């Protein structure tokens, strides 16, 4: 036990002092920020560029309605979280109504688009309005969000006109056209919680990225560390004082402590910076309120997953002789992770299907898939408990396995082991 602690501490200190640890600690959240927040920020900035649009229609009232809807869209005005962005956006939008719909005017407007005087125009002569087939002409025909805004504005204007003809007051019309907002809420232990679909997907994604990157990073790092000891023959000195099992357990626990440190740093940093405010900038409303129990499960599965893959890395490092060889076998570590990622969506959609239950009980998939099931729809307690027991058991078995491979593997350096040989090593020693 004492030796295991010494090895764990050594492994921990060496890893934490490495530059790669610092890089990982800073870079990973930065990357996640980059992947989730920056694109939506860029998207909203794009619509913020000045736009000059002309609505060509013989019906002045229709033109005014479309213009009004585009300048002040009611659906977005109803969302307080994003209102501040949109005010500036619509300030940059200049919509003019042109009641001249002669073919000459059409040619003139086309020329204006071509010469950059306007960005585009909606061509809505009476016959087109009657058949409800309008066209928007601009230099770039692929601005889907502009088309979407325009379509809803035109639809809204037509509805208003139709209501007005039936004698409804402007207040009645506005009330009837009030947008509808459907929120997804989760029922947990008989109570309605406010963690919705987007939040589930987001946290699942978050965990996946965290687990995936850290496992690749530190699983490989444990593997390299085992390799280093083998190749420099440190093992001869170490094994003349301690057992292979103590050494391996120390390595795996040490890197587990590294993983723990890493999420501790992230948690503290996120709490200080206020993750909530960062997320709301994304333009979509995320409830990151996971609840204490989910946070605890996150910790448990993160650490156990980490330990399992560290043990797998250690076993791999014991079996090979050089980093080049190790790279050829990296898929052994990556495969179960990739399988977990592939099955993430089916599990999110049907957390109680047989497939989901079976997959989440396979130890190599448990860290990711069982956690997702817990977040999406809490499975029966016995399943959670069973998955944790299986996971811990597998970690211990991996430890026993890799210390055996290590003990025999070190004696065979210079020669790449075949799979039957590795099987023999496991029985031996």
């Amino acid at each position, binding site marked *: 036990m004492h030796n295991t602690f010494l090895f764990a501490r050594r492994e921990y200190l060496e890893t934490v002092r490495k530059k790669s640890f610092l890089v990982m600690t800073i870079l990973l959240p930065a990357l996640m920020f980059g992947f989730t927040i920056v694109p939506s920020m860029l998207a909203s900035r794009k619509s913020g560029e000045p736009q000059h649009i002309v609505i060509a229609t013989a019906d002045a009232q229709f033109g005014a309605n479309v213009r009004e809807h585009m300048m002040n869209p009611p659906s977005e005005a109803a969302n307080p979280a994003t209102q501040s962005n949109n005010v500036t956006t619509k300030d940059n939008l200049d919509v003019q109504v042109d009641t001249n719909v002669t073919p000459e005017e059409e040619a003139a407007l086309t020329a204006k688009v071509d010469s950059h005087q306007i960005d585009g125009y909606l061509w809505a002569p009476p016959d087109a309005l009657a058949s409800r087939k309008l066209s928007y002409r601009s230099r770039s025909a692929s601005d889907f969000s502009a088309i979407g805004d325009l379509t809803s504005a035109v639809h809204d204007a037509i509805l208003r006109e139709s209501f007005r003809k039936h004698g409804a007051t402007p207040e009645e019309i506005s009330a009837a056209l009030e947008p509808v907002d459907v929120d997804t809420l989760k029922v947990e232990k008989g109570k309605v919680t406010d963690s919705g679909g987007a939040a589930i997907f987001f946290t699942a994604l978050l965990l996946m990225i965290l687990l995936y990157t850290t496992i690749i990073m530190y699983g490989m790092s444990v593997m390299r560390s085992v390799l280093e000891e083998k190749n420099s*023959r440190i093992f001869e000195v170490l094994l003349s004082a301690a057992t292979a099992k103590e050494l391996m357990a120390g390595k795996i626990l040490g890197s587990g402590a590294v993983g723990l440190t890493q999420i501790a740093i992230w948690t503290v940093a996120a709490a200080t910076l206020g993750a909530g405010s960062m997320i709301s900038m994304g333009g979509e409303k995320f409830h990151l309120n996971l609840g204490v129990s989910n946070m605890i499960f996150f910790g448990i599965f993160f650490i156990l997953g980490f330990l399992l893959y560290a043990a797998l890395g250690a076993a791999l490092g014991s079996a090979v002789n050089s980093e080049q060889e190790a790279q050829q076998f990296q898929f052994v570590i990556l495969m179960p992770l990739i399988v977990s990622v592939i099955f993430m969506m089916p599990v999110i959609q049907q957390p109680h299907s047989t497939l989901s239950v079976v997959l989440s009980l396979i130890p190599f998939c448990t860290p990711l898939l069982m956690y997702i099931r817990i977040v999406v729809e809490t499975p029966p307690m016995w399943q959670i408990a069973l998955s944790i027991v299986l996971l811990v058991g597998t970690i211990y078995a991996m430890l026993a396995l890799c210390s055996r491979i290590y003990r025999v593997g070190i004696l065979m350096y210079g020669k790449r082991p075949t799979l039957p040989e590795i099987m023999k090593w496991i029985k031996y020693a």
Partner: protein
Amino acid sequence: MPTVELHQVRKTYDKFVAVNDLSLSIEQGSIFGLLGPNGAGKTSTIRMMIGITVPDSGQVRMFGEPFRRQHLKRIGYLPETSGLYKKMKINEQLVLFGQLHGLSAAESLRRAQQWCERLEIVGSFEKKTEELSKGMQQKIQFIATLMHDPDFLIMDEPFAGLDPVNASLLKDVLLDLNKQGRTILFSTHRMDQVEKLCDSICLINRGQAVLQGKLKDIKSRYGKNNVQIEYEGQDDFLRENRLVQSFNNYGNYVEVRMAPGADTQSLLRMVAERSRVNKFELMEPSLEDIFIDVVGKTDA
């Protein structure tokens, strides 16, 4: 009571027999040489001695008892190639090795400092292994072996990579420890390096002991039938089969092993006939000569 006894110890890797029913005994307080060419099975033998591997058959006894892991606290092992963490500081490394052998951190640090002073490497105490020269690393490794003041020292090629000054520094430390009653095992293929140090030897080749016993007895058994000759002139006397069994030409001089029953005086006369003799000396055979002789016989 012998410190180490191997009894019919055998180790095979796949079909390759690394150690073939080897028996040997190392007396307490002696300096023992485990000698043999590369790949003879020296390191495999040592590994079984300290429980890194388990013999397929045979018995290992340490300090008079069947080997147990607890014995490791009394054994210091210096491996053949560097066994240090490259990116770890020397002081941390030595403290770790001390602690692994059951010392406290403070005591380990104190001993590490003492040894670094004695081996004149205090300056590298705070450095990482990779910043040190090979000779320095070897000294650190040496200290790591001695941290827990073991009763039995196993030195696998201890002087490899050391200049003569440092080799002699380490040799003096080892002789000093031997005087205090420590048992030392040298494992090397450089027989000339340990020839002067060892009381007893075991020569192994292809996993088998080909010669063992007290060095004095072995040498006297082989007698003084080697001649070292320094000469100027022709060397056709070397091909005189009646007198010369084998020879080893070192450039400045030649070492001749006499044919059985041949008279050294006839050889001297023969050399003097054709060449100018500067030196003609009767010698004890070197271990290397003995080894070549023995191995030549067993291989034939």
